[in-house]
């Protein structure tokens, strides 16, 4: 009876073991990097909204403070989006006929919400609280990036857990004085590097390294 497999299959089978390993490793590496790629994390991907609201125009151009619209950021878990009425405080006077603002006017007329797309969207099993981060000297910019340069809102960070932990494990690297939290252009003073300032602030604000699971998951 003849052999079913040719002798070369010995080499092939050995090679397939090695190649299989390489394939598996590549697959894992691909999955890990894919999870951090903009396709999944949506970093730097501008999102389309019912109204093309420009933070660049309102923040950098007009100098409106974050809290004018995101009113509950210092009090609540949610920073909250402004009600249509807040938009209309200005837009009942300026750009009253602009076509792109029609959804805003319609919302105000009909008392129905504008359906904004959530850009910074954490999974439902994560419980994030804005007020305490603001209170402890975490700047808006640290998570949301250079909002004042964005014509359309986008993520600057992955919002992955490893990214959260970067700060939760070493908050001193990111802290800033409380009065600078809403300043999107703040940089550490030249005479005091971030490491030194951060450590000082962590001490002054009693910032703990909260890494218990229940800090965010419950």
């Amino acid at each position, binding site marked *: 009876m003849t052999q079913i497999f040719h002798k070369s299959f010995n080499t092939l089978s050995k090679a397939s073991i090695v190649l299989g390993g390489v394939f598996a490793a590549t697959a894992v590496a691909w999955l890990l990097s894919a999870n951090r790629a903009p396709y999944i994390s949506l970093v730097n991907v501008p999102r389309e909204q019912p109204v093309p609201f420009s933070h660049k125009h309102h923040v950098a151009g007009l100098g409106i403070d974050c809290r004018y619209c995101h009113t509950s950021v210092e009090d609540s878990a949610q920073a909250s989006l402004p009600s249509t009425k*807040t938009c209309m405080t200005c837009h009942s006077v300026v750009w009253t006929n602009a076509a792109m603002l029609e959804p805003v006017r319609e919302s*105000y007329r009909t*008392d129905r919400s*504008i359906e904004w797309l959530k850009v910074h969207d954490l999974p439902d099993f994560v419980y994030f609280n804005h007020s305490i981060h603001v209170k402890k000297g975490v700047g808006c910019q640290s998570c949301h990036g250079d909002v004042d340069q964005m014509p359309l809102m986008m993520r600057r960070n992955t919002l992955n857990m490893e990214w959260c932990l970067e700060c939760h494990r070493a908050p001193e690297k990111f802290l800033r004085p409380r009065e600078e939290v809403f300043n999107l252009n703040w940089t550490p003073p030249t005479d005091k590097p971030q490491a030194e300032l951060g450590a000082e602030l962590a001490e002054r604000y009693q910032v703990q390294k909260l890494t218990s699971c229940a800090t965010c*998951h*419950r």
Partner: protein
Amino acid sequence: MSHSTPVTVPVEVDQRLAEQSGRKYWKSLEELSRDAQFSARLDEHVRREYPSQAEMLADPVQRRTLLQLMGASLALAGISSCTRQPDEHVLPYAKSPESLIPGKPLYFATAMPWASGAIGLLVESHMGRPTKCEGNPDHVASLGGTDLFTQASVLDLYDPDRSTTIVRNGRSATWDDFVSAFGPDLEAQKQKGGAGLRILTGSVISPTLAAQLAEVLKLFPRARWVQSEPVSRDNQRLGALLAFAEDVAPRHDLSKAEVVVALECDLFAEGPASVRLARQWAARRRDAAMMNRLYVVESTATGTGSMADHRLALAPAAIDRLARALAQTLGVDVGAAGGAQLGGEEAAFVAALAKDLKAQAGKSVVIAGEPLSGQVHALVNAINVQLGNLGASVEFAEPAAVAPVEQGAGLADLAREMARGEVELLCILDANPVYDAPVDLEFVAAMQKVPLRVHYGLREDETAVLCQWHVPATHYLEHWSDARAFDGTLSVVQPLVAPLYGSKSVHEFVALLAGKPGSAGYDLLRESWKATLGAPADFETRWQRAVHDGFLAGSRVDARSVSLKRFDAGAAPAEMNAGGELELALRPDPSIFDGRFANNGWLQEVPKPLSKLTWDNALYLSPETAKSRGVQSGDVVELTHGGRKLKLAVWVQPGQAPNVGTLHLGFGRTRAGKIGNGPGFNAYALRTQAAPWGGSATIAKTGETYSLACAQEHHTINEHGLERDLVRETTAAGFAGGDFGAPRHAHGAPAPKADGHGEKPGHAEGALVTQYAGYKYEGYAWGMVIDLSTCTGCNACVIACQAENNIPIVGKEQVARGRELHWIRIDRYFNGSVERPRAVFQPIVCMQCENAPCEVVCPVGATSHGEEGLNEMVYNRCVGTKYCSNNCPYKVRRFNFLLYSDWTTPSLRLQRNPDVTVRSRGVMEKCTYCVQRISQARIEAKRQDRRIADGEVVTACQQVCPSQAIVFGDLNDKQSAVRARKSAPHNYGLLTELNTAPRTTYLSRVSNPNPELAGA
């Protein structure tokens, strides 16, 4: 196969009990008998934790298919981690409401109306969705606590089976259709002065509604308003009329009572003031040096009876005789035939009780339950007068009902009128007589002689489908109304949400009858208040204040001064044990009451306090009685009472009075909804007008069996647990002598120290060695103490936890497999002989061990030790190995074998607490000490640069507990209440010999027996 139905007779159990020296506590009769079937079940529920094949999918999956599925799901799980999150939208308000901060709940005062009095609440609202009811600490009936019904009422609001539209002869219609069609009918009645109009309601405790109905009666002078509740206060009323010649209701103050006697009365679970009474009673049970004493005589084992220092289980007729003998002994005039002779044990009981009562004259109270006759109520009133308790521990005042009537007779009159064809238009408001009217009234036949029948109610129930019109009612969280508390305090029922289905409130409905269609409930209420308060100049201020507080301050109705009249106490009823008779006792159910909560899944699934049955009622028989009739749990018998027959299952219940069969009301419904249709047996089929609470009956075996889902052996603390030192008991006298309930030869580690830091290896001589890393808690160290002396097993905490933590129900079949998800289970142990057991309740929450066995075995780090000592659970990490649950000695972990959470029904999603993850299939879950509440308090404190104050974090179970048995707090705070309780000498941990160092500990149960009644 059923995993739950015990199929054994307690064979010679007493003998075994005697043989087992040193063993005191037991959970079920089968466990005591230790027969082969019990061992098999023990194998399934204890050694295996979950019954065999529990992990299998419901459909038959072959091994190969399973492997394929597993492979595929592994691959998919890998890929799913790389999928994009689905897009979500944010919908800000168009015009933001005042005082609402997104992400922060608001609390509004309201009140839950109840037939016998309202309970004041603060209801949590998330962006307009009421999610959780808490007690209003300032309200007289709540004092901050609530009962299980109140907790579950929020689920009723979102019940998908509520009717959403007006129904005319089975077809949907609009309110305008109804108004235009109903108008001519009303007009026709008006021509006749309303001769053919009858309005049937439950007890009305809303002054506004009563005033509206009075107005209707003015328009229709010959019409009649009938009030009827299945659980009425007719006997109490008769007792007051006999004793005082006026209809007054007793109000009890247990804070002023040294001796409390409850006769056939579950006073901590039923009645308008039960929460208040439990709190007052418990306040006197914490300090062993100043304890009150509780005597309970009852036919059916209840939570209150389990708390008694002395409990006597007697048939209702025998309780009647005992009450007469007690009255006689205390010198009350019982009339010629009113006395009773007692034998043996009962006589000794009465003698000792009478002596105790006399010694505490003026500081004692005797309370009679509604099932006892009016004569006994009168005698009890006379006893309280005789003892000088009037004005101290008991006072009398007009009842909460605004226009109290004798309800049984009223309903019977209505049925007769209908049968004679005198009624032309019947309006039924929030009542379900087709289901719950006495069967001998033949209400259905009579009702169908009425040409026009209109039903107003929450659901299209048994009555609604027999009416031409069904008008959906609003839930109490949807409408403006008012209600009187048990003491008359005028409470505001404030809506938390606009009617989900656009329903009209009862006031708006009655306004239509009063010829004012289109009136808004809010305006009607304010008008009525203006009339009541005499439209003072400061009305607006007072109204705002009342809405804010939830009640009108100072509106309590003053006690009346009553004087005892001579009355005829009648003769004692005959005993019913001749010729194989037994005494049937019909009682409201401890979880679904009279059936009104039948469609509430939380209440259906909560294990009943003593029997631990879920989803069913059954005929409770004592072990002795069951043995003598040759029946066992799960047997179907045919019960005959007053010529009527009902086939129903038997449940053998230790603590039940001999020769008494108790059947709870409210089950066997046909039109309750998806949840309530089906379970149990309809006790109303046996209930007659003359004997609403039962009477003589016989039973005959049918040979059939019925599967009952009983949770009493589920999650049992290991097979030897029952022999271990889990429950500790002592007496007040023993306590003074240094006996704190610890067994004399308790092995293992000492109880954890008060600071919560368990004994560390090497620190103390003889300490248990551990390989766990010692933790340091520099911030907070959370801990809990549960006082067994005051836990009445009322289940309020179980439901509160369910509402707070988004815990789903699983259904009867899944409960039978031991898969119920309640994070708190109340273990009920019996102590002593089978015929005279004493029950002890032990609520088991997660122990949050310092050395937690669950943490080390999780392969994916889904459960880990937190910085403040919690054993944290991360649902999104859990892959469902169940190793943690397997390794938990306390059996507090619960697994989602199937997708139990309802992710699709829109109305149910509104109920969820947004601060707690909704769990999915394949995920382990457990008590977290309400970590969401801790987080909120921590953030709040940090924002104000301070520490969390003691009492700032209140767990859901602690908040609701009527008797304040649960204390929670920071063990690092030397001044905290929890630390004070942990330092008590009778503080102990469970299974501390395992060196788990539990954070949850218990206080031994301290009782205060009468030395003259040793052993009783």
